[in-house]
């Protein structure tokens, strides 16, 4: 990853204004926090691509229960 896990959480909060700033933790799960419809999935995939350079697909992203697990996955993809 190009930045810390805390920064990753804060960046998600910046991108999704319906999420209260400072509320995300490593154990948070996106589908449980916001409506996980196709629009938000698209915005999330675009955010990942722009911030990390990882072209992840939805099947990859949805297998992780927590943002911590997703952060680790993205970190591996960046360094791969």
């Amino acid at each position: 990853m190009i930045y810390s896990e805390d920064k990753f959480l804060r960046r998600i909060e910046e991108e999704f204004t319906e999420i209260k700033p400072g509320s995300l933790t490593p154990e948070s799960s996106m589908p449980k926090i916001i409506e996980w419809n196709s629009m938000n999935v698209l915005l999330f995939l675009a955010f990942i691509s722009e911030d990390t350079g990882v072209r992840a697909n939805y099947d990859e992203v949805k297998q992780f229960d927590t943002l911590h697990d997703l952060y680790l996955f993205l970190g591996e993809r960046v360094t791969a």
Partner: protein
Amino acid sequence: MALFKVNNIRIAGIAATVPKRIMSNLNYNFVSEEERKKIIKLTGVEEKRISAEGVTASDLCIKSAKKLMDDLGWKPEEIDVLVFVSQSRDYIIPNTAHHIQAQLGLPKTCAAFDIPLGCSGYVYGLFAAANTMAAGSIKKGLFLAGETPHFVVSERDKASHPLFGDAGTATALEFSNHAPTMYFNLQSDGSGLQSLYVPGGGTRLPLTEENSVEEKISEGIYRSAKHLVIDGVKVFEFTMREVPDNATALLTYANKNIDDIDWFVMHQANLLMMETARKILRIPVDKTPYSIRHFGNTSSASIPLTIVTQISDNVSSGKSNWLLSGFGTGLSWGSCYIETGPVYCPPLIEY
């Protein structure tokens, strides 16, 4: 790989026509105001043009072609090939290109045919038309790309209705021994067919009384078999996965790099997709014109419409290098690199 060079063909001019009728997404009352704002943010489409009853894609293209021929001083009898790219055909049989050939007064010696491609159609069609002319026996050709997607979009489908608009364009192609080489990279993947398609109305699923009734698919999405299906997530993933790599392979083939490009003109799919692809390719935003805000996604017409409405002053006045990228239904995608001289672009026509 389907990498091609086409020699001795230049783009003499590009014209575009849109309907006068404006449909604003701010008035799309099928969804809440909050959702409207989110749709506009994601797609980038504030408004689009919808043709009047009885006006077809070929009508819009004919307007563009006539203007271009008049302004360039091209006589109908000089044109030996006409290619019409569209999925909004006037008739099931025959090809619409023949109707257009007659309407434009082109001679019987003119070859005319349709290519029923969607969002990749401008790049594919440009290759087909230019390659047909490259042998040298044809000196002037017309390549028309137009679409009226509202015929296949459900008004009660928030995923597709706000996105699409109508437009018809014409591109004038001319044989020239001095024209720089055009480079193309064309690809396809039919395994992704169901992520962007109209299931009914063809021979595989004829329309019936039963399947023509709209059904609720999900919240905010009602469709029948005659309506366009979009799996937005799949299409986005396809765009991210394939479009930048296709363009990169093309530039390698052409021995060019990003700095050589003056204009990166993408199919106006939706703003989020285009911006994601642009950032992956690291192309500056000021080299990437967008017309989607006012015209929506006009399928194969969107690349020439963007050139006419956004960069016509620049491309009309001198040489410039273009990277064009089309991608969408099929799945089908392609890119081309062109070094152009001045390209004549009359102001946008409204009809």
